[in-house]
């Protein structure tokens, strides 16, 4: 049976295919070129082996710094995002606060951690500290957005009940809203910690500290065996943090 919407739908599919075809042409996407590059990739991989274990201690130091950047940045952001999350929630914030707060969130969230890192390296110089600042800048607004959505999803009943006792607005937030959203908040923070570890691995590329600095240095020096050690350490670090964090998250909800 012909659906009444089938003609506009076909037109939409046609337009989508057209757009994709154009992007393939404009980006120079070429399977033949990829095929010709395969031997080079193989050569690259061959030169990475075996990993150079002499740089293992140095890369582990870098990895630990990356974890520190993500941990401190996420922790600070988790706290800073609290007031921002509440003023960005439609059901608890006055309209006068809600709309500007939403706009601020959307603007800051559209910039990635790496871009913040470039800005903060320029502002405070090289090292792990601008990395921490970059993680804070991005994570605060992205967590605030998640917080506000959790707040908008609460049951209104307990809020009514606390309001009816004659509680102040602040007490209603503390006793009617917070107990409902706190486990969700913690789980979002851990999830952000996991993604921030990954994001922090490349912060070193722009001079903001951690394992990325080592990886980029080895690649520049064409020391592929050392670079592969840095990559392996990165993989192990990410898997470790993911494993611990997802186990804690499973116990929260």
């Amino acid at each position, binding site marked *: 049976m012909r659906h009444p919407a089938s003609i506009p739908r076909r037109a939409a599919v046609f337009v989508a295919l057209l757009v994709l075809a154009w992007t393939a042409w404009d980006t120079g996407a070429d399977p033949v070129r990829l095929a010709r590059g395969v031997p080079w990739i193989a050569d690259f991989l061959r030169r990475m082996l075996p990993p150079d274990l002499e740089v293992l201690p140095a890369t582990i130091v870098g990895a630990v710094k990356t974890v520190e950047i993500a941990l401190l940045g996420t922790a600070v952001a988790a706290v800073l995002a609290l007031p921002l999350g509440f003023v960005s929630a439609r059901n608890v914030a006055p309209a006068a606060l809600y709309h500007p707060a939403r706009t601020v969130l959307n603007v800051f969230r559209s910039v990635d951690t790496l871009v913040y890192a470039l800005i903060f390296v320029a502002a405070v110089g090289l090292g792990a500290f601008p990395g921490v600042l970059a993680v804070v800048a991005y994570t605060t607004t992205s967590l605030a957005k998640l917080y506000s959505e959790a707040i908008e999803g609460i049951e209104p009943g307990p809020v009514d009940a606390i*309001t009816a*006792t004659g509680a102040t607005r602040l007490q209603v937030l503390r006793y*009617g809203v917070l107990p409902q959203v706190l486990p969700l908040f913690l789980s979002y923070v851990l999830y952000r910690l996991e993604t921030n570890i990954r994001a922090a691995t490349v912060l070193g590329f722009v001079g903001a500290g951690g394992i990325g600095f080592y990886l980029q240095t080895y690649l520049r020096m064409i020391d592929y065996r050392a670079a592969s050690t840095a990559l392996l350490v990165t993989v192990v670090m990410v898997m470790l943090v993911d494993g611990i964090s997802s186990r804690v998250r499973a116990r929260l909800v």
Partner: protein
Amino acid sequence: MIEVAGLRVVFPPAVTAVDGVDLVVRSGEFVVILGRSGSGKTTFLRALNRLVEPTAGRVRVAGRAVTGAGGSELRAARRQIGMIFQQFNLVRRASVLDNVLAGRLGYVPSWPSVVGRFPENDRAIARECLDRVGLGHLADRRADTLSGGEQQRVAIARALAQAPAVVLADEPTASLDPALTADIMGALKAINARGLTLMVSQHQLETALAYATRIVGFRRGRVAFDGPPAAVTPAVADAIYGERG
């Protein structure tokens, strides 16, 4: 004790839920509000402590103006109006005692309470109220581990912790089975016997007649009947519930 004059609640765009209600309730009465679902019972009760903002009219409870009251005046008025809900509305993840303690929020200093500190006297009141509903032994349990009947009794304890002059109950037994209905209505009757004024909405006629000292029938947002249970004849029941009119 409760004085309502010309109360109207209109929800945007133009749904009139409560349409000009005048009602005076004296101290110690057990008023049951009868009516079909959609007759305006819930909105009326929620307008009495301004969980729903009235469109027009005046409400006074225990000598305090509810309508027209600003921030702290409104909170002082709400403090003396306990409220019990159909869905209990406990904070599920909090302990039973913490839920009852929430009834003291209108009395305790705001900032200490935000970090979880309550004066020892208020804690003692909360424990006493929990004992009064027979659940003192469950104080440390998480609220959502209790049965429906137990949760509603915790909600009653929370209302009592407010040391209220009046308790409003919105269909307090609609989520419970018949045996628990008697249990909860009995608990409310016991509160009433100690001098508290009660206003309870019900859609079950038999339950209403068994406990009320006064019946107020709602129909389409207006008072269709007001009198003692003995005066509720089949004709009156028909005027409240009937399809006609």
